[in-house]
C-alpha cells in the first residue's frame, strides 16, 4: 500500500479495518464488508483530494511514491535513448535528456529526475540540478531544433543545486541562457510540470509553447518553507506561506501562468502510474498536434506573446502616470 500523508488519516483507519477483516477466515459476509469498506475508502479519497489545501498539495507533489520523469518516459515513449553530458564539464544525473518515439514520431525529452529509493535519490542528487544539467538539456534541445523534432519537458525539482560547485560553474548563467534560447528555439516545446516546480531550477527548462501542469503539482518562486523563514522568520509557518504564494495548479491557471491543468487519478498520480501517464499523454499529444500545425513564425510569436503577457496591465500592475512630486526627467546632476 502506498504511504499515506497526515491528512489521509481517515483512509488509513479504513485500511486497518480492511486488513483486520482479511486476516480472518473468508466468508461471503466478510467479503461484502471488505468491499463496502474499500468503496468507502475510495469515495473518501476522492472527497479529500477534491478539497486539498495548498500545503497538502505540496505534500502530494513531493510524495515519495509520486511518479518521476522516467516513469512517464517509460510509458509515453518507445526506444527511449538517454544521452549524456554537456560537452563542457560533466554529466549531471539530476537532469535526464534523450530521444524517443512519441506515438511513432521522433522527439527529444528532457526533465528532472528525483529518484525514488535512497540510492537513486543520492545518484540523482534529489533532483537538484547543477549547471551541467541545464547545459546538457540545451544541447539536446538544439539537436531537436536541428532535426525538426519537438521537445517534451518534465519539470520536477525542488530547486537548482545551491552548492559551491554550482556557483563556480555558473548555474545562474546556465539557467539564464536556457531562458533566452528556449524562447527562440525553433521547434515545438511542450512542458509538463509533473511534481515540484522549484523556482529558477524549474524555469530553466520550462519555457515552452505550452506549459501544462498536473493537478497536484506546484510551481513556486521559492519553497514555502524558505518563504516562511524569510517573511515570517519561522519556517514552521510554511502552511500559511503555501497559501499566500498561490502555487497550486488552479491558482496558476487563473493567473494565466500555465495553459492547462492535467487531471490525476483519484487520490493522486502516485496511486496509478498508468492512468496518470495516460492523462498526461492525452494532453501532450493534443497540444503537440496543435503546435505542429502552426508555422514556425506563428508559433514563436505566440510563445513570445504568452510569456510577454505574464503579469500584464490591469491584472498585475496599473499605469498611473508619473508619481506626484517626481523629478523632472532629464536633469543630469
Amino acid at each position: 500500500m502506498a504511504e499515506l500523508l497526515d491528512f489521509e488519516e481517515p483512509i488509513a483507519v479504513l485500511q486497518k479495518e480492511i486488513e483486520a477483516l482479511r486476516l480472518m477466515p473468508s466468508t461471503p459476509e466478510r467479503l461484502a464488508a471488505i468491499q463496502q469498506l474499500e468503496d468507502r475508502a475510495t469515495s473518501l479519497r476522492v472527497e479529500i483530494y477534491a478539497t486539498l489545501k495548498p500545503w497538502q498539495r505540496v505534500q502530494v507533489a513531493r510524495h515519495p511514491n509520486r511518479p518521476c520523469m522516467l516513469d512517464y518516459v517509460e510509458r509515453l515513449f518507445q526506444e527511449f535513448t538517454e544521452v549524456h553530458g554537456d560537452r563542457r564539464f560533466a554529466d549531471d544525473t539530476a537532469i535526464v535528456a534523450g530521444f524517443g518515439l512519441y506515438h511513432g514520431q521522433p522527439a527529444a525529452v528532457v526533465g528532472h529526475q528525483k529518484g525514488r529509493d535512497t540510492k537513486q535519490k543520492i545518484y540523482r542528487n534529489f533532483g537538484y540540478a547543477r549547471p551541467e544539467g541545464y547545459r546538457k538539456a540545451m544541447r539536446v534541445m538544439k539537436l531537436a531544433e536541428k532535426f525538426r523534432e519537438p521537445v517534451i519537458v518534465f519539470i520536477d525539482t525542488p530547486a537548482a543545486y545551491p552548492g559551491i560547485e554550482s556557483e563556480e560553474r555558473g548555474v545562474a548563467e546556465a539557467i539564464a541562457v536556457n531562458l533566452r534560447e528556449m524562447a527562440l528555439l525553433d521547434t515545438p516545446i511542450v512542458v509538463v510540470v509533473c511534481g515540484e516546480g522549484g523556482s529558477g531550477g524549474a524555469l530553466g527548462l520550462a519555457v515552452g509553447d505550452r506549459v501544462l501542469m498536473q493537478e497536484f503539482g506546484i510551481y513556486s518562486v521559492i519553497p514555502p518553507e524558505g518563504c516562511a523563514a524569510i517573511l515570517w522568520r519561522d519556517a514552521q509557518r510554511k502552511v500559511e506561506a503555501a497559501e499566500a504564494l498561490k502555487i497550486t495548479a488552479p491558482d496558476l491557471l487563473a493567473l494565466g501562468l500555465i495553459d492547462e491543468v492535467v487531471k490525476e487519478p483519484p487520490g493522486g498520480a502516485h496511486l496509478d502510474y498508468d492512468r496518470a501517464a495516460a492523462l498526461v499523454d492525452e494532453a501532450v499529444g493534443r497540444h503537440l498536434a496543435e503546435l505542429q500545425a502552426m508555422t514556425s513564425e506563428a508559433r514563436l510569436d505566440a510563445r513570445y506573446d504568452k510569456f510577454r503577457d505574464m503579469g500584464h496591465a490591469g491584472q498585475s500592475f496599473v499605469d498611473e502616470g508619473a508619481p506626484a512630486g517626481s523629478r523632472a526627467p532629464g536633469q543630469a546632476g
Partner: protein
Amino acid sequence: MAWFKKARRPIAAPEQASRVPEGLWVKCPSCNKAIYNKDLLASLSVCPRCAHHFRLSAADRLRMLLDGGWTEHDAGLRSTDPLTFTDTKAYRDRLSKAIAATGLNDAIIVGSGTIEGLPAVVAAMEYSFIGGSMGVVVGEKITRAAERACAERAALIVVSCSGGARMMEGTLSLMQMAKISAALGRLDRAGLPYLSILTDPTTGGVAASFAMLGDLNIAEPKALIGFAGPRVIEQTIRQKLPEGFQRSEFLLEKGFIDLIVDRRELKATVARSLRLLGVGPRSTTPPATAVPTGDESDA
C-alpha cells in the same frame, strides 16, 4: 598623587554632536575613515581612500551613466498586489511604505538618452525599494526597455542591484525572468548590444536571467553576485564559505564576468565598449529598417 584619579563627568555628547549636521560626514564601512559627504558624492560614492563602493540609488546611476537630457519611461507603473499577499504585514502596506520612502513606484528607473553621444536605454535597479526585488513592474519595465532599444536601434544597459525575485508576487515574479530573457533574445538577434552591469548585490532570479545575459557582463569591485544566497549554501553544505566566494573577483576568475570596473571609470568603459561593439552616434547611423512609426512615447 592624583595621577590615576579620574575626574568623573557625566557623558554629555548629544548636544555637542548635534552641532554637526546629519550626513555631513560618512564613515566608510570598509576602512573606517570619515569621509566628507561632498567628497564622497564627487567621487560617485566611492571611498577616496580604500575605493569601497557605496550602494548607489537608481536615480544616481542614471545621472552617472547618461549624458544630460535623458527621458524617463514608464515611471507610473505600479503593482496592484496581484496575489493580495500578506505575511506578517500586508504586501500592499510594504509597497506604500517603499513608494513613500523612495519616491519611486517600484524598484527600477528606466531612461533613454545618450552615453558619450551614443544612443542607449538604461534601466537601473533601486535596492532601497524592497531589496531591489523583481516583481511584475520590474519585469515589465525591463522588457519594455529591451523592446524600446530594439525599436530605436539603441544599446540596452541594465544596472542590476537586487536580491532576486519578489516573493510577494509569487510565481508571477518568477515568470518575469522568462519574459525579460525572451525580450533580450530578440534584442540579441536584432544585433543590438546589451551590457549588463552587476553591482552589489546581484543574486537569485536576477542573476539567473538578465544579469548574466550581457554581451558583456561588467561588475563593480567586490559585488556579491550569485544564484543561491551565501546563507542557503552554508546551510546546504554545512560549512563556512571561503573568503571572497561569490564576489566579482571570484566570478571573473571563474569566467562569468568580462570586466571589473571601478565606478569612477564605469561610464567611460561603457562608452568605449559600446563603440567597440559597433555603436555609433545616432546621426552617423541612420536606421534603414527602423523608421520611427509614431511609437507611443511617454514620460
